[in-house]
């Protein structure tokens, strides 16, 4: 599906850098009296794919917002390569690419302008080089011919690929994904999983994915954490997760369907 013919040229900066690690220590986030994340501790090893799973409303997206620097933790510490995230954001030392659930493409701009925005605004290259990089990136992700169309004309899968392209063009140290396979059919979802796995294999960018897609976690995740009620109990490898006998994990991976007693209805006497 993707061709990495020009990877070395396009990602020269990324390939020349060492992958970074992410450390989370005693992280807590609360909104007024509601504790959303409580005492989160984890470490994402350099170059690995870490998947944070959990039921809807468990605080996964809040965690991603904290890591992306979009909100501040109530307490605890987030760091990259042992350097505090606030310092990292201020000095712009590390680049973080966040691929949003909806893609978050700029609807008033063409796909080309969406992809070129970061490079143009930070004045990283001249206009000819930007043109060349964006075109190469679109070719690489088999998105040829869409440069001049608007994001509203794209399908869900294409939007996610364009969002990934935008993230990759930043040559990030950390790639963050928010539900990359949500709202997609199984085949398109599989192609996105392949793409993330392939990019990680080629570029060794430290990747953190927030998702409740079990297939994604087990196929490309190096480590998987399960978030329940704002708390991480354990961090698993894909094999350990599969073999876990913990009721919450078993129920999350293979939920039982009981049509006679739906779980959100009060038990009948």
């Amino acid at each position, binding site marked *: 599906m993707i061709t990495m013919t020009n990877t070395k040229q396009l990602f020269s900066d990324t390939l020349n850098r060492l992958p970074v690690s992410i450390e989370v220590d005693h992280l807590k986030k609360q909104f007024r009296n509601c504790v959303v994340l409580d005492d989160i501790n984890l470490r994402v090893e350099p170059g690995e794919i870490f998947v944070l799973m959990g039921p809807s409303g468990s605080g996964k997206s809040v965690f991603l917002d904290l890591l992306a620097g979009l909100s501040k933790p109530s307490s605890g510490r987030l760091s990259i390569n042992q350097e505090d995230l606030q310092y990292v954001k201020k000095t712009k030392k590390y680049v*973080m690419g*966040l691929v*949003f659930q909806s893609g978050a*493409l*700029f*609807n008033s701009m063409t796909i080309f302008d969406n992809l070129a*925005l970061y490079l143009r*605004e930070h004045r990283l290259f001249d206009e000819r080089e930007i043109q060349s990089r964006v075109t190469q990136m679109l070719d690489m992700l088999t998105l040829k011919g869409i440069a001049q169309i608007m994001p509203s004309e794209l399908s869900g899968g294409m939007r996610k690929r364009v969002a990934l392209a935008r993230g990759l063009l930043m040559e990030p140290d950390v790639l963050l994904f928010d539900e990359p396979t949500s709202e997609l059919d199984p085949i398109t979802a599989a192609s996105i999983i392949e793409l993330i796995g392939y990019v990680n294999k080629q570029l060794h960018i430290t990747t953190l994915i927030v998702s409740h897609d079990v297939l994604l976690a087990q196929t490309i995740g190096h480590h998987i954490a399960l978030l329940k009620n704002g708390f991480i109990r354990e961090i698993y490898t894909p094999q350990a997760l599969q073999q876990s006998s913990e009721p919450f994990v078993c129920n999350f991976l293979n939920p039982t369907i009981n049509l006679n007693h739906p779980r959100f209805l009060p038990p009948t006497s």
Partner: protein
Amino acid sequence: MKLLQLWAFIFQLFFETCRELRYLPRQAGRCFEQCCIMGYQTLPIVGILSLFMGGILALQTGYSLSKLPGAQSFLGSIVGLSMCRELGPLMTAFLLTGRVGSAITAELGSMSVYKEVDALRTMNLSPVRLLVMPRVVGGLFMMPFLTIFSTVLGWLGGWIVTQSVDFISINGSIYWRSLKQYVDVESINDGLLKAEIFALVITLISSAIGLQTKGGPREIGNSVTRTLVQSMIAILMLDYFVTKVLL
């Protein structure tokens, strides 16, 4: 409490916009685009309304002055001063709020709701530099032109009425002579100063409310309504104080 938070954010946005002005040359394209949008959206409606506003003013005043012999010769000065000192800037500000302010809030609100603003932040790009500053600069640049256009069309509307209504017994030359006699550069400058203050307030309020929008499409609608209400209240209150200082 919410209102205080909003105004605190508006002041914060004002200072951030001032800080981002050093990037103005690099954002010139975006500023020019905003000028075009504002001019294109507002110019026709400003023209129509101002023409009728001047006409109505001449009609009402002309009728009242017709009872006082010779008083109608002041009609030109009344329409002239009212339009350039008060009605021109005020009407243009109201129309800018309705046409441009609401569009700014809707656009920035939708960008906030659909995470486009967050996407800018994760790219280390300042939403104020890319979204707010060009709109403020566009508003400040276009408002004087719109106000002058409104004022001149208001005068023209008054003149048309003097030529076409029976109970106003002055000819065109008296109307224009009276207007020229009382409308001086200072009056026009006072009107333009007001217009610039209004433009700053409208663009900042609409941008602030747009960026604070959270939720879904319904909240975007609510934000647009909030922009209209807040801007109009602010314009009228400021108008009173600025007029008091200038008189």
